[in-house]
C-alpha cells in the first residue's frame, strides 16, 4: 500500500514538474499585464533546443542552457510583438504556438531526417543528494536536477513577486500601468522583463521534457502549455497557488493513468483540469480575478 502511494506520489511529481515551471513562468508574464498563451510554443522550442544542444555540443548542461535561451528568445518575440508593437496578445500567443509546431518539425526533418523523432540524446546527470536518494520511488526523482530546482523556484518566485521591488513594480504594472509610469517606471521595460522571465522558466519545462525522454518527438508538449495556463488561473496568478494547482492536475493525470483499463471512465478524468479551470473563472471556486490591465497594451498617449 505504502509502495503504491509512493509510486503514485512519484508519478504525480514527475508530471507536475513541467506544469509548475511553465505555470510559474506564465504568472510572471501575466502579472505584468501580458497574456501569455505562448507557453506551449515556448516549451516546444525549448525541448528541441535541448536536444539540438545535447546532440551537437555533447553536454547536457549546455543543452539546458540552449533550452533556456530558446525559451527566452521565443518569449522575446512575444514581447516584441505585444509590448513594443502593442499588437493583440492572445493572437500573438496562438501564432507563436503554431510557429513552434511548424518550425520544430521543419528543423526535425532537416537536421535528423525524421518527421517523428530525434535520435537518443543524454539527459541531465543525477545529482548526489546523499540519503535522499535512497527514498523508495521518490529518491531517484530528487536526484534529477530539475526537481530540486523546481521545488526551490516555487518559494523563490513568490519572494520575487511579492517581496522585492521588482515584483511590486511588475504587479503594479499589471494592475495600473499608468500609475507605474507616473512613478517614473518604464512600463514596457517591466513588462518585457516579466515576459522574458516567463520564457526562461518555461524553457526549463521544455528541457525537462526532452531530458526525461532523452529525445525530441513531434508535438511532444501535447497541450501541457495550456494545462499550465489553466493551473495558473486556478492558482490565481500566484506562483505558489499555480504550483499547487499543477500538483492537483498532476495527481489527476497520474490517477487517470493508474486507472486505465480498470473500468473507471478514466478518459473523462482528462477533462477535469479544464472543467475546474472554467469553474474557477466563473467564480465557483474562489474568484480567480486576473490582473486589471491584463491583455491591454499600454499606450502612454491614452493614459
Amino acid at each position: 500500500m505504502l509502495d503504491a502511494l509512493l509510486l503514485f506520489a512519484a508519478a504525480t511529481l514527475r508530471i507536475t514538474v513541467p506544469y509548475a515551471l511553465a505555470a510559474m513562468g506564465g504568472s510572471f508574464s501575466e502579472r505584468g499585464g501580458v497574456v501569455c498563451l505562448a507557453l506551449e510554443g515556448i516549451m516546444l522550442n525549448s525541448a528541441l533546443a535541448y536536444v539540438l544542444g545535447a546532440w551537437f555540443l555533447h553536454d547536457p548542461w549546455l543543452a539546458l542552457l540552449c533550452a533556456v535561451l530558446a525559451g527566452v528568445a521565443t518569449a522575446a518575440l512575444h514581447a516584441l510583438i505585444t509590448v513594443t508593437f502593442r499588437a493583440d496578445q492572445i493572437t500573438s500567443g496562438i501564432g507563436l504556438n503554431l510557429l513552434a509546431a511548424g518550425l520544430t518539425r521543419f528543423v526535425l526533418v532537416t537536421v535528423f531526417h525524421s518527421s517523428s523523432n530525434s535520435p537518443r540524446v543524454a539527459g541531465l546527470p543525477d545529482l548526489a543528494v546523499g540519503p535522499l536518494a535512497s527514498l523508495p520511488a521518490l529518491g531517484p526523482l530528487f536526484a534529477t536536477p530539475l526537481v530540486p530546482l523546481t521545488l526551490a523556484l516555487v518559494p523563490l518566485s513568490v519572494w520575487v513577486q511579492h517581496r522585492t521591488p521588482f515584483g511590486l513594480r511588475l504587479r503594479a504594472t499589471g494592475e495600473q500601468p499608468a500609475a507605474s509610469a507616473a512613478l517614473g517606471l518604464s512600463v514596457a521595460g517591466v513588462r518585457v522583463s516579466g515576459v522574458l522571465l516567463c520564457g526562461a522558466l518555461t524553457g526549463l519545462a521544455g528541457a525537462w521534457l526532452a531530458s526525461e525522454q532523452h529525445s525530441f518527438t513531434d508535438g511532444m508538449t501535447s497541450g501541457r502549455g495550456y494545462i499550465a495556463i489553466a493551473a495558473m488561473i486556478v492558482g490565481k496568478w500566484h506562483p505558489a497557488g499555480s504550483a499547487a494547482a499543477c500538483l492537483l492536475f498532476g495527481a489527476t493525470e497520474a490517477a487517470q493513468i493508474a486507472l486505465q483499463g480498470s473500468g473507471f471512465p478514466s478518459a473523462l478524468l482528462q477533462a477535469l483540469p479544464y472543467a475546474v479551470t472554467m469553474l474557477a473563472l466563473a467564480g465557483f471556486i474562489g474568484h480567480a480575478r486576473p490582473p486589471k490591465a491584463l491583455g491591454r497594451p499600454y499606450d502612454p498617449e491614452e493614459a
Partner: protein
Amino acid sequence: MSSPAPAERGPQPEPPRRTAFPLDALSPLVAVLLALVAGGVLIAAVGQSPFEVYGLLVQQALGTGYGVGQTLFKATPLVFAGLSVALAFRAGLFNVGAEGQMYLGGFAAALVGAYVPLPWPLLLPVALLAAALAGALWGAVPGLLKARFGAHEVINTIMLNFIAFSLVAWAGQSLFVRATVRTSEVRSAAWVSRLDVVLPWLKGSPANLTLLLGVVLALALWLLLFRTRKGYEWRVLGLNPTAAEYAGVRTRVAVVQSFALAGAIAGLGGTSFVLGYKHWFEQDFTAGAGFMGIAVALIGRNHPVGVLVAALFFGALAYGGLVVNRFVPADIVNVLRALIILFAISAHALFTRWAKQRAA
C-alpha cells in the same frame, strides 16, 4: 482614469485636409508578403530555391483541376471556421473554440448519419442540423459564462476544445469501430455529393457541396451583419459595449446569441469531412482547421467576403505543402501560416498607431 472633457484640451487639432489612405487595409497583404520573404529565407537555408518551391506550390495547387479541387476541399472547413471567428469578433468576442465546435459538429453529424433511421431527403438535413446544434451548444457555453459571470471567453473556449476532445475520446471507446479511431460509416442518405459530379474538371478531388453551403452562409452572414437590426446591434456591441448598453441593446442576450451562432457555423464546418469526404468521423479530423479560422478571419478582415478569399488562399497553402514536400519539409506551410498571423497583427498595430499619430 477619466479623460478630461474635450473643452479642457484647448483647441482641437485641425482635421487632416486629405483623407489619409487607410494604411491598415494593406496589413493582410503586407503580412503575406513578409511571410513569403521569411519563408523564402528558410527555404534557401535548406539549400532549395524559394522561387522554384513557391512556383511548384502555385502550379500544383491552382494549375490542375485536381489541384484546384484539393484547394477547394482544404478551404471548405476554413470558410466555416473563418466565418465563425469573424462573426464572434464583430460582436466583440474572441472565439478560440472553433476547433472544438467543429470537432463536436462533425461527431454529431456522424452519429446521426450512422444511427438515425430516416429516409433520403430527411437524413441529410437532420445530420446538418445536428452538426449546427452541437456547435451552437459548445459556443453558447462560453457565451453564457461571459454574460452571466463575466468570465473571459478566450480561456473558456480553449478549455472547451480540450473538453470536447476528451468527451469524444471517451465516447469513442464504445462507439468507434473496433481497433480504429473512427465511427461506423454514415448511411448514404446523408452523403453530400462531390463537386466533380457537377464540375468534372475537378476530377477525383474530395471537394464537395458543403463548400457551397459555406458560400451561402457567408452571404447570409453579410446580410445579417450589415443589413439587419440584430447585426447592427452585434457590431455596436463589438465596437463599444458601453454604447450598446446605453442604446438599449440587450448585451447579455446578444453575447449568448452571437456566440451560439458562431459555434453553429463552426459545427457545420465539420460536415465537409464527415458527410462529404470520408463518410465517418475520425479522431483529430479537424487537424487545426478551427484554429486556422483565426488566421482566416484576420486576413479576411472579419468580413464574410474577405473570409472566403482568405480561406481559398490558406486552402491552397495547405494543399501546396503536400506537393512541395519532395524539396522542403511540408511544415514550411505551417511556418508560413504562423508568420502570416504574427506579421498581420504586428502590421495592424503599427499601421493604426502611425495613422493616429499622423492625424494628431
